[in-house]
């Protein structure tokens, strides 16, 4: 039977981050996951706030906002921590709170983010002469011509050149970026030769779908040393190699440092003694299992990850500890007809309210349990779609909860 210092429930970005921070503090960590979490579906870029200057915007947020409770020092520390862990896994990340970095989407628009894999950094596109946009025969959902049409709106002075490589990936199933990334990691020769054939100069840039391997930066390093131009990966439809790489980097750090990751762990309840949680109980098809620990971090992903469920309308519910979930009353506020419209979503602000130690609080603002911390998309009081703060809240609340 394992006695953990910290049990993290959830294996998405927030859960893995919290576990990494706890492991760095030499704690015995157990991560209980069900499903592979958000990362394989995500771009791996971590957005903090929808503003040109996220730091200034975050400083001006009202008292109830999760970022206010986390506090700027922890937010900054979380960025440095993630950069450090990813660098150790040979997956360097770049960026900080003072500015936003452009990345190219799969359709050729630009989006801005705060903390991104180095391979996606598109900052230099404004300064290059020629931009090659490279498609790969067989990959659907990546059309170099469409990317060029859209990118021209941003970089009207550049000379664009859409090309498609044939890397012999046809035959068999329709392939996606994950497949191509795997195949190129297995054998990069053909890809490198084609890239070299572009004769791109140091004043050019080459935009490619995210196909430079599925674990770390090693394929990119090999490819780059043989090219003169910058090489930029776009986002893509899921499953996304860039998100999978981040998941693998964090998981590797955990396993290398003795954390235990238990998959398929369907946590269905906690055991409470006065105002402390003493353990959680998982259930598989035939029996229950009790996991004791000193501290618990709930990173079950809010509405999107199943951490908050709604069996009855207007009664959102946290199924493991039955924590109070605050929500915006009234059906009319529940969903903005345009989910990705520019208006805040009532729905998305729903969640569990926490104190500055990320502990869930009651209606008087008092912590419900001394040793339970709630992080990531479970936290209420924000609209992360409108704010573009999901990733930032995930890693900074994780950092805060794990360092308490």
């Amino acid at each position, binding site marked *: *039977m*394992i006695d953990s210092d910290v049990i993290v429930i959830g294996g998405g970005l927030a859960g893995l981050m919290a576990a990494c921070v706890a492991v760095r503090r030499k704690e015995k960590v*157990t991560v209980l996951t*069900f*499903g*592979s*979490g958000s990362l*394989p*579906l995500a771009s791996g870029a971590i957005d903090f706030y929808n503003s040109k200057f996220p730091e200034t915007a975050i400083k001006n947020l009202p008292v109830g906002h999760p970022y206010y409770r986390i506090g700027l020092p922890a937010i900054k520390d979380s960025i440095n921590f993630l950069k450090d862990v990813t660098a150790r896994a040979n997956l360097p990340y770049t960026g900080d709170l003072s500015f936003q970095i452009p990345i190219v989407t799969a359709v050729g628009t630009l989006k801005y983010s705060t903390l991104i894999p180095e391979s996606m950094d598109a900052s230099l596109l404004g300064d290059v002469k020629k931009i090659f946009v490279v498609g790969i025969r067989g990959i659907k959902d990546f059309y170099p011509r469409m990317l060029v049409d859209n990118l021209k709106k941003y970089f009207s002075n550049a000379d664009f050149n859409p090309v498609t490589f044939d890397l012999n*990936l046809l*035959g*068999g*199933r329709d*392939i*996606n970026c*994950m*497949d191509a990334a*795997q*195949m190129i990691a297995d054998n990069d020769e053909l890809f490198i030769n084609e890239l070299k054939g572009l004769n791109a100069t140091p004043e050019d840039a080459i935009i490619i779908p995210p196909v430079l391997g*599925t674990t770390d930066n090693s394929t990119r390093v090999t490819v780059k040393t043989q090219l003169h131009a910058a090489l930029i990966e776009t986002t893509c439809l*899921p*499953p996304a190699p860039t998100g*999978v790489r981040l998941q693998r980097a964090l*998981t*590797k750090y955990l*396993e*290398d440092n*003795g954390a*235990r990751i*238990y*998959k*398929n*762990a*369907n946590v269905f309840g906690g055991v409470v003694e006065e105002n402390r949680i003493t353990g959680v109980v*998982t259930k*598989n*098809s*035939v*029996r229950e*299992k*009790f*996991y004791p620990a000193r501290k618990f971090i709930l990173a079950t992903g809010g509405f999107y*990850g*199943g951490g908050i469920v709604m069996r009855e309308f207007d009664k959102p519910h946290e199924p493991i500890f039955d924590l109070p979930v605050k929500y915006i009353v009234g059906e009319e506020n529940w969903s903005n007809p345009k989910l990705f419209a520019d208006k805040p979503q009532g729905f998305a602000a729903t969640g569990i309210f926490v104190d500055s130690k990320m502990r869930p609080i009651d209606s008087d603002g008092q912590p419900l349990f001394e040793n339970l911390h709630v992080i990531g998309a479970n936290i209420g009081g924000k609209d992360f779609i409108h704010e573009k703060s999901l990733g930032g809240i995930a890693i900074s609340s994780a950092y805060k909860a794990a360092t308490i």
Partner: protein
Amino acid sequence: MSDNVKAIFSGDRCLSCTACMAACPVMAAIKDYRGPKLVAPAHGRLHFSQEDIEESLNYCSNCKSCDRACPSGVAISTMIMLQRAEYYKRNSHIRAEDMLAHTERMANTVRSMPFGVTLANIGMTLGQSLGVFSAMGITDKRNLPAYAEMSFKDKFPTIAQESSEKKVVLFTGCYINDNEPQIGEAFIKVMQANGYEVLIDREFKCCGSPLVANGFLDEARQHADNNVARILEWKEQGIPVVTPCTSCSLMLKEEYYELFDDEDMRRAGENVFDAFEFLEVLQQMDEFNYDLNDLNQKLLYHVPCHLKSQAIGLPAADILELIGGVTVKTANAGCCGMSGNYGFQKDKYDIAMKIGAKLFERVNKKDFDQVISDCHTCRIQIEHGTKIKPVHPIEILAQAYQFD
């Protein structure tokens, strides 16, 4: 096919998130396989009512990585196995599939002949060099596992045991019975040290895992009915059924129920334990014997896929770390690729080896004293890929209880 099988309907919960595709090792290895999402939730539901079958489903190794990645609890691999059985209603098996699926029948035939074992072991080497197996569809690139001189069940009456009120039935599984009986003996040593007497039940048949994987579903059902009746009889006497083989335990605990949807199967599953899971229960009841020899060994643990799927944590790792001087590091290298008899099939050998490459690389770092794994096919694959012979964790624990 009975249409009240719940697994098929679990496909309705699919969100099309693609997490299963990102997790499938066969998809990563070859591009002919169209993958879990397409074969199971997407096509699977249709194919039970239509004639056409997605042929590439024969590439699935039943490793269940997809199930563990799915956030919605879709019984992906089981849907694939059910469809494979449908496929074989219309297509005949090749001889390799027939032979590899019937491990138990083979062993019994061999043992019933004079000098059968010796001849069979020679025969297998000979068969290989003469190309007999290759003609049948079995790879000649690896040795078939050799039979032990005497099966565990035949040896059992000669193994001295202290009798006890507390009893467990050992479900040996084919491999421990026919190939590595010393694992059964180690299990007895461990249980005796913990005050238990070990019984066996000669009426048990092969759990059926190789039958299911090769599409012999009706036969697997017969085995299931036989074994479930036996397990329920033991359950009535209050005697648990315990097995050190993780594919057997997964089959007995949950796959019968998932495949055949019979309430008796679920009830029987409640009386089945993985060996270390059972020891952990003893710990929880304060009945575990902590009087262990120091061993001073660094162990590298390859966690079998079928153990991960059981959602019981890593009881072997936690218990072995109770031994003085023992540290257990998980290999964190994914599926070994072998997946039961998959890697013995001629047309799957290369896929199996490609999947295993990451694990071989990890093992070849040689930063440990021993490699451990609960699953015999994982052990066979590791030895084949690295020339390093792993042992079952129960063998290490038995050593620690050995005081002479």
